[in-house]
């Protein structure tokens, strides 16, 4: 990966890339719901969706039609403006975060000769930008819960604030150790650091596990999905939502899952380097797909945790472990 031989990034290329990310990730987010149901069904010895189309593949279209044609209900006593923009915040921050990570390989469109880069906006503090944007994503659930004047919604948004703020600390600290080793905040440097074939997960297994746990908590995946825990608080922050506004929360959630998958693949699992006979673009797609599958696997394997267990896990187990990991990495780097 020599940066000098790459063609210049033009405005047209960035715009095409942005549209591409928006279109493909929204589609994958929709398709992800189908995959999730099928995988969960397989793991729980059920059949999953199978009536609409072959193997239930058209279930996706049926869900889409249902979401688009459902009545958009806004509760009478809700704060209407905030209630309406809250889902947009979730979806928007999730896609803005995707602007700074490498999704899909770079390519040149033939005939018009427009170079489409791998990263829409290659800021040299990529990792921090993604973390910051995902942190800003907490306003979606938070405002949604507060605007709907529903007690389940308020509890949901209180849990949002507590859970996201706590696990942001663990995500940041767990990524700090690899950042110290590479000495850069850019995803490209992380990829180049691992180009000799040794993945960073070999040096930083603890950081990898901590990052995955915190990542699942930040994307609101099942062992930690207390924001909308249906057994306790109806649907949490989405209780009053219907139709496409409800759908936007889930597009945002799936986009965030893909972002976590990309960070895990690039930072810990070797990035988009070629491996044996497989080209780099196939490797990164495979890694992202596996980490997506892993999230579903975890969901099938583990029950919900209680809110107090969640806080106990974050502040008494994960955070000290992350700090110790950073200190040990620092000492080893100083000696070595």
């Amino acid at each position, binding site marked *: 990966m020599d940066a000098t031989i790459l063609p210049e990034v033009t405005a047209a290329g960035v715009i095409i890339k942005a549209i591409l990310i928006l279109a493909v990730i929204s589609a994958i987010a929709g398709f992800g719901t189908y995959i999730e149901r099928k995988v969960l069904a397989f793991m729980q010895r059920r059949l999953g969706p199978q009536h609409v189309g072959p193997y239930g593949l058209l279930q996706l279209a049926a869900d889409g039609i249902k979401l688009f044609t459902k009545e958009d209900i806004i509760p009478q*006593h*809700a*704060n209407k*403006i*905030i209630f309406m*923009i809250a889902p947009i915040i979730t979806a928007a921050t999730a896609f803005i975060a995707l602007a700074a990570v490498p999704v899909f390989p770079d390519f040149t469109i033939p005939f018009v000769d427009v170079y489409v880069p791998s990263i829409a906006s290659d*800021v*040299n*503090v990529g990792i*921090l*930008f993604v*973390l*910051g*944007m995902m*942190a*800003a994503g*907490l*306003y979606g659930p*938070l*405002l949604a819960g*507060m*605007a709907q*004047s529903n007690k389940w919604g*308020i509890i949901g*948004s*209180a849990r949002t*604030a*507590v859970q*996201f*703020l706590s696990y*942001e600390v663990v995500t*940041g600290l767990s990524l700090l150790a690899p950042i110290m080793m590479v000495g*850069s*905040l850019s995803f490209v440097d992380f990829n180049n650091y691992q180009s000799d074939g040794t993945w960073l997960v070999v040096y930083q297994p603890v950081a990898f596990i901590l990052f995955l746990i915190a990542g699942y908590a930040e994307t609101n995946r099942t062992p930690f999905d207390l924001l909308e825990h249906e057994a306790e608080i109806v649907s949490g922050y989405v209780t009053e939502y219907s139709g496409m506004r409800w759908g936007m929360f889930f597009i945002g959630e799936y986009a965030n899952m893909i972002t976590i998958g990309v960070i895990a693949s690039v930072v810990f699992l070797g990035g988009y380097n070629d491996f044996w006979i497989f080209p780099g673009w196939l490797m990164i797609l495979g890694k992202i797909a596996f980490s997506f599958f892993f999230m579903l696997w975890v969901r099938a394997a583990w029950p919900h945790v209680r809110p107090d267990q969640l806080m106990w896990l974050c502040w008494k187990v994960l955070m000290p472990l992350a700090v110790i990991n950073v200190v040990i990495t620092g000492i080893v780097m100083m000696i070595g």
Partner: protein
Amino acid sequence: MEAIAFYVFAISTVILFGITALSKNVLYAMTSLAAGMVMISGFFFLLGADFLGVVQLIVYVGAVMALYSFAMMFFDATKDIKEKHGNPALVFLLGGLMALVFVVIFSAPIIGENMEALYPIVDGVGNAQAVGMVLFTKYLVPFEVAAIMLLVAMIAGIILAGKKMDKSLTTTVIEENPEDEILKESR
């Protein structure tokens, strides 16, 4: 291009913070304050200070504002707040004077034209490294003092929150602890 971006960010920041100051609704004020913080990070990105822009996002948007909103949950967010204006003329005078003082403070170096970058951007040195170098050489003492202050605040917070932490609010059987003050207050 840069000028357009600057004016977009500038106008939206002023409008959003205006809503924060003028709105009587807690939710509107909070949302616009958070959005305004995001817009401010835009200025850092425009100036090429990516690292500071991201720090603005993480610290102010992600952490500080989220804590504000957590506190706001104890109020009824759907009702308008009735503000008490005991002496509107005095408030207007003091507020106006403070605004004037700030404008003078920040515009004086620009008018005097002796603004110069003490630590200009060095080629080949990243944003984070540049901040680190200044932080660990010239501003080491303020940095350490800030660290101690945060430690003190953290210990104080733990002590304040940690009273009666060994007693559980939910699992204690009331009959066994009739003298439990926490439970008495909650009833």
